[in-house]
C-alpha cells in the first residue's frame, strides 16, 4: 500500500492505496465519491472523466498514486449544496440528461472546455463531446445546453 496525499474538491485528503488502484476506483471506493461513473474501464467512453489540475482526464486511465500533490475535481465539486451550476442548469433545462450515467463525465469535460475555451463554437463542442459516449440522449440537447451555458463562462477569469 502507498500513501497518497492530494486535494479533492478543495479538501486535502490522504489515502492508502495499492499502486494498481485507478483514480476512478480510489474516488468511488476509498473516498465515497460515487458521482464519478465507470462504464468501460479502459478509456473509450469518457464516463469517468474528472478534472486533474483543471484538465479533463479519464480517471480509469490514471492511477491514484500518480495524484500525489494534484488537485482533483469531481462532479461533486462542481456545484454547491444549494443549487445547480449554470452548466448543470442548462442540461436540466434542455433535457440533456436521461439515464444520467454518462452525465458526470460530460459535465466535467464540458466544464473544462468552457473554462479554457469560453467561446468554443458548435463544431468544437461537438468535437470534444465525441470523446464521451451517451447511449440515451442523441447529443442534440447536450450541444444546445453547452452552447447556452457558454455565457456563464465568458468574462470569467479562465
Amino acid at each position, binding site marked *: 500500500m*502507498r500513501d497518497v496525499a492530494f486535494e479533492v474538491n478543495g479538501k486535502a485528503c490522504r489515502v492508502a492505496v495499492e499502486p494498481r488502484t485507478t483514480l476512478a476506483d480510489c474516488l468511488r471506493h476509498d473516498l465515497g465519491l460515487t458521482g464519478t461513473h465507470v462504464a468501460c474501464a*479502459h478509456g473509450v467512453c469518457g464516463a469517468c472523466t474528472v478534472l486533474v489540475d483543471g484538465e479533463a482526464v479519464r480517471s480509469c486511465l490514471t492511477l491514484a498514486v500518480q495524484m500525489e500533490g494534484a488537485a482533483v475535481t469531481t462532479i461533486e465539486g462542481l456545484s454547491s449544496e444549494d443549487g445547480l451550476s449554470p452548466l448543470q442548469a442548462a442540461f436540466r433545462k434542455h433535457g440533456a440528461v436521461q439515464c444520467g450515467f454518462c452525465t458526470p463525465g460530460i459535465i466535467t469535460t464540458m466544464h473544462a472546455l468552457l473554462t479554457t475555451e469560453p467561446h468554443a463554437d458548435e463544431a468544437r463542442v461537438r468535437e470534444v463531446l465525441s470523446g464521451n459516449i451517451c447511449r440515451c440522449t442523441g447529443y442534440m440537447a447536450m450541444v444546445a445546453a453547452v452552447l447556452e451555458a457558454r455565457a456563464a463562462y465568458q468574462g470569467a477569469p479562465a
Partner: protein
Amino acid sequence: MKLPAFDYATPTSIGEAVALLAAGDGSARPLSGGQTLMPLLAFRLTAPSLLVDLRGIPGLDAVEIGEAGTRLGARVRWCDIEAHAGLAAAQPLLVAMIGHVAHYQIRKRGTLGGSMAHADPAAEMPGVAVACDGVLHLVGAGGARDVAARDFFLGPLTTALAADELIVGITLPAWPHGRRWGFQEFARRRGDFALAGVAVHYDEVGGRAVGAHVAVIGACSAPHRVAAAEALLEGSAVTSALAAEVGRAVAASVSPPEDIHATAAYRRSLAGTLAERALAAAGGLA
C-alpha cells in the same frame, strides 16, 4: 477488468529510471501518460512487476525547433503539440496527424513516447515517425543510442526497445518550405483507432515530385513506407491519374488484419482510397 498488481516508482533522473528498469525481472515498464499502457493493463495484455513513472524526470517535455529539425521529448503530450505556436509551420504533417489522435481527455495525458513505445499499428505517432524519417533517442543501461523510426517499429506492440531502455525523445528532420503533403485517416468514430491511414509528402522540383514518401498505418502490422507507391510518384508530375495509380499500389502492398470492425478486403480498399486522396490533397488536385 481491474489491473494486475504491480509496484510503482517515481525516479527523478533518466539514469535512475533506467537502473530501475534494468534491476528487476525484465518486466518493468516505463509509465508516461498511461493512455496506451493503462488499457493494456486493464485487458491484462501485460503484467509488469513494476511501473517506472517518468513524471518526476525534468526536461522530457521539451520541444526544440532548430535548423536541422524538431526535437520532441518523450513526455510531450498531444495537447502540448496542439497548443504549440511553432509546430504547425515546422512540422505540418505531425500536427495534421495529431488531429486524429484519440479524444480531448486522452490528449491531456497521452504522450508521444508512450505511443511509440507501444507501437499500436493504428496509432498515428509511429506513422509520423516513419513518414518523416524520424530518429528515436533511446537511453538504456548500456548507454544511449539512436534508432531510425523505420527500424524501430517491428510489429503490433513490438519494437526494437530493449527491456532496460527508455525512449527519451524523437527528432524529425527539418521540413523544407513548400513541401507538399497530405494525410488521410478513417476511423468509425473520429479519434478511435484508425482502420487505415496514409501520409504522403514530397518536394516539388520543376513540377515533378522528388523525395516521395508514402506511409501507411492501421491496415498493416506496423507503420511502414510503400516503396512501390513511392517509385511511381518519384520524378512524376502529380495528376489525378497518378494519384489513382498510387492508390492501387498502396492497396496491393498491404496485408491488413481482419476483425469485427472491418474485413481485410475493406481495409485494403480503404488504404488505397486514402492514399489517392492524400496525394490529391498534397498536389492540390482536390
